[in-house]
């Protein structure tokens, strides 16, 4: 699941709104007037790369684990969120009910630079088209002939990046044929990924430009109420293992017992989904970040594949100090397997 979302809901608080009592950023609010995910839906590409405006929330979420020629590790995030203020409305003009939000960040061992954008649809400032593919907000864009071959650009006042992403494998359906369950009571979303991007390009940092190469992971997800009312945060992991396998796993925290799910993706892209309880994520160390204790070293396990690794954040200070603050950053993997990946944590007060 991917998370985050932040723009939220009917009555969206666009500017520095407080976290809602229910769930993180309104994700736990009910939304009967919007379309609901169905296990019978079959995803079709490239059509499903496009927005699904009848659903309340949706995102195009890219994270990249990169390294400079001298091996210095970097992480990059590029995210476009869509949040519908109403299930229908005019497609063109200021009256369009689609709100868009962009988050971008660059992380090194010593720095974490982030920026945020807000826009509404209907006026050409933000949106997603499929042929040719373009997902953009202001000057930030993920665009190319198709989603398998895109450039990814974003900039803030103190950083920018320009990367080319070329998919080396297939799109991967998460959960049950792209229907991803998020709670014991059945909240779900439509969810697929492209974890096989080969990435290269340039980061512009306060110290100068850096040429980088590495791997990137795209998550596509849409829903109308992905969280149960009692859930208020999550820890989400994506792992690029050195053997070419990928692992997506998350843990949803709430008033009840934790809910976990995972997908093991073979090097050829064959997914194996795992139900609640198979995937384990246990905090080992916390760091004081932005005035709260956030776990930055984890033990992550998937016994079915003999996976038992320590996940260590590249930089504990990966706080995203935005309208809906959260932690997002790259990590290193050691243990039974090695590699890298990205971690997102929400709901740490």
């Amino acid at each position, binding site marked *: 699941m991917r998370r985050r979302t932040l723009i939220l809901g009917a009555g969206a608080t*666009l500017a520095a709104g407080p976290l809602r009592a229910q769930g993180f950023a309104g994700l736990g609010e009910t939304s009967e007037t919007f379309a609901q995910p169905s296990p019978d839906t079959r995803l079709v590409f490239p059509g499903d790369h496009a927005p699904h405006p009848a659903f309340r929330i949706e995102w195009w979420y890219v994270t990249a684990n990169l390294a400079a020629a001298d091996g210095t590790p970097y992480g990059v995030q590029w995210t476009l969120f869509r949040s519908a*203020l109403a299930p229908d409305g005019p497609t063109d003009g200021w009256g369009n009910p689609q*709100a868009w939000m962009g988050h971008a960040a660059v992380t090194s061992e010593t720095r974490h630079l982030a920026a945020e954008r807000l*826009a509404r649809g209907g006026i050409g400032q933000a949106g997603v088209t499929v042929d040719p593919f373009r997902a953009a907000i202001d000057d930030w864009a993920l665009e190319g002939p198709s989603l398998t071959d895109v450039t990814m650009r974003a900039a803030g*006042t103190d950083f*920018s990046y320009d990367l080319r992403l070329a998919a080396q494998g297939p799109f991967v359906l998460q959960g049950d044929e792209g229907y991803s369950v998020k709670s014991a009571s059945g909240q779900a979303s439509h969810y697929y990924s492209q974890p096989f991007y080969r990435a290269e390009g340039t980061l512009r940092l306060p110290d100068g430009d850096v040429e980088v190469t590495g791997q990137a992971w795209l998550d596509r997800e849409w829903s109308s109420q992905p969280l149960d009312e009692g859930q208020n945060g999550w820890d989400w992991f994506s792992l690029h293992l050195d053997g070419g396998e990928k692992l997506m796993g998350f843990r949803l925290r709430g008033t009840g017992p934790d809910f976990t799910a995972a997908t093991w993706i073979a090097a050829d892209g064959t997914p194996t989904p795992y139900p609640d309880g198979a995937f384990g994520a246990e905090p080992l160390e916390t760091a004081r970040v932005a005035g709260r204790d956030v776990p930055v070293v984890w033990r992550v396990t998937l016994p079915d594949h003999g996976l038992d690794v320590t996940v260590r954040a590249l930089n504990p200070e990966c706080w995203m100090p935005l309208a809906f603050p959260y932690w997002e950053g790259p990590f290193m993997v050691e243990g039974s397997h090695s590699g890298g990946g990205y971690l997102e944590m929400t709901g740490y007060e």
Partner: protein
Amino acid sequence: MIAAGLQALLSHWWRHPFQLVTLMLGLATATALWSGVQAINAEARASYDRAAQTLAGPARDTLARRDGEPIAQETYIALRRAGWAVSPLLEGRLDLDGTSLRIIGVDPFTLPAEDLPEELGQSGVDLSFLTPPGQLVVDQDTADRLEGTDLPPRITGRNVPPNAAYVDIGTAQRLLGRNGELSRLVVTGPSDLTAPPLEEVAPDLVREAPETGGGEIARLTDSFHLNLTAFGLLSFAVGLFIVRGAIGLAFEQRRPVFRTLRALGIGRGVLLGLLSAELLVLALIAGTLGVALGWLIATMLLPDVAATLRGLYGADVEGTLSLRPVWWLAGIAIAVLGTAIAAAGSLVQVARLPLLAPAQPRAWARASAATMRWQAVGAVLLAVTGLLVGWVGSGLVSSFLLLGSLLVAAALMLPIFLHAVLAGLARVTRGPLAEWFWADTRQQLPGLSLALMALLLALAANIGVGTMVQSFRLTFTGWLDQRLAAELYVTTETDAEGRRLQEFLAPRVDAVLPIRSADGEIAGRPVEFYGFAHDVIYTDHWPLIDQSPDVWTRVSSGQAVLVNEQLARRADLWPGDEIALPDGENVPVAGVYSDYGNPNAQAMIGLDRFDALFPGIPRRQFALRLDEGRVEKLTRALVTEFGLPPGNISDQASVKQFSLAIFERTFAVTSALNVLTLGVAGFAILTSLMTLATMRQPQLAPVWALGLTRARLARLELLRAALLAALTFVAALPVGLMLAWILLQVVNVEAFGWKLPLHFFPRDWLVLAGLSLLAALLAGLAPARRLVRMPPSDLLKVFANER
């Protein structure tokens, strides 16, 4: 003991309720006029502040098109997509049955929360604000005014400027009928690292420093508010004369009581404390009453003030008053302060009261030669100080100081003047009755002098301000005739339409004169440049107040410029001086023209030179010369044949009418305050005469006993009142003219930037003289009637009581 003392002191008011009423009324009116003016000023300033805080916050740069035209929405999108942190703004006015509503269209997605009305920032923007029909965030007043209109639903916001509505940008475009248009872009932060410079993305936009709209308005309107303040102060001073009179009388009459109390063992400090406490209580009560009255006055005057400020400066001021606690406190404080000033002299006298001196009441503040000498010295000192301040200082404040000190000096000189005149008259008349009459009048002078001084101030202010307004009106109407020489003024919607219009008009009118304007800078000051086509309309009519030879040939060929009087005076630029044009070239100033009613600096230059200086300026304004009889026909043709909206055509007559209407409203407030001041002065005379009448029995009884009838005595009383008023008017006339001269030659230059010639209006003076006589006669009527009806036994008692 203290309680007994207090009771003894207060018993005076029981026995003289009329004195109490006088004191309270005097203090209340003084406070009322003062705090009324303060309330108006405070309300206006609060409105400017709120207007300044409007979106785009006071501290943000904006982007606007060089030519002032609307920005295309595509330009905004292009800037966003290039990485510029800008937020769109669409402002406009919506006409609503005669009034208009300022529409401020904002985009809550890109405008920082602190720039949005609180009500949007806090509750979160919701769908009903963003999507049709949208919502209007307005202040309570505007919400009430919009009741029943078919505009989108209203939400009340606390910090919304008056007469304005915040709406979503989409709603603004729909309401104003300006789809795809934006007025300005607010720069909300630094651009992205990769953003190209502005010239590459939107070459027709310029970045402008934060607009200090409210600050600018506040500066422009400062002079107007200072004028009001000066008037408030004058009214307050006039009111204080009444208070001083009442307090002085009350203290004088209680001298035996003070002496007795002191003799009974009440210490000086305790007595002074008791008296101060008594005055404080009276001041508090009267102050509260005065503030309430002032609120009433302000409520009645504010709509006029608001209309004036809108007409003159384009400043939006709310038409209703909100109650501010600070203002209540200030009003009551000024009442207490006024009482303290008025009572200081009397309290000092009580402190020095010799315990064993006879307790006989003298006529209070007996006119001794010494008192008069002191007054004369004071008057001269004041006048000299005033002149010095006016000569050395500059700016509006020192002009008003000069005015104030000269006025007070004149008031102080009044008793001396009256005394001299009465003495002269006494010398030239013969006969015992006449001699008694003059002597008795002089005897009464001290008691009446404070009231007469008040009358002098009021009359002088009336003459001065009246002369100023009338002179201004005369100059202004003459100037309008010169300046508005063209018969029709037409504006087109686009440049292309402008070209078509010129073709359309060519066979129909005597001349089509394009008018273009652009903002520029001269000597570091913002100046509005006007481009004009050479025509006899200018050479024959344009109101030049200073010029060099060949002025029109040189200016229309672009070798020289004309500047308006405001610019000439502020930057000291006169014919012969040189200025730098925006392209860096230096050209001489060839002439200066008067430009009344415009707060800004202006310069005129030939059209060709103007076009070279400011390329790309819209060409949409034209002045048309034609036979007056054909104006109506042509107006119809422009609307029906050419298709110009009627609102884009104005004829000379209606522009004049509109300008004069603004002018009249500007001075409506001044006139109202003038009348109030005169009323206060009339009241001062009435109270003085009434109190004097009660004390005059000992003086009248012997004359009555010698054979003069009560009716005859009463007639003489009336005659005396009229005579004193007439003499005061004679003294007030030169003072008023001096005031008018200072207002026209000094204050107007400081406040507005123009100097006006002084004209005399003797008919107005006659009316005013008649009014002051009438006031004096009315004031004298009540005491005279009482005298006529006084039982002879009362007059006889005087002899029985003779001590």
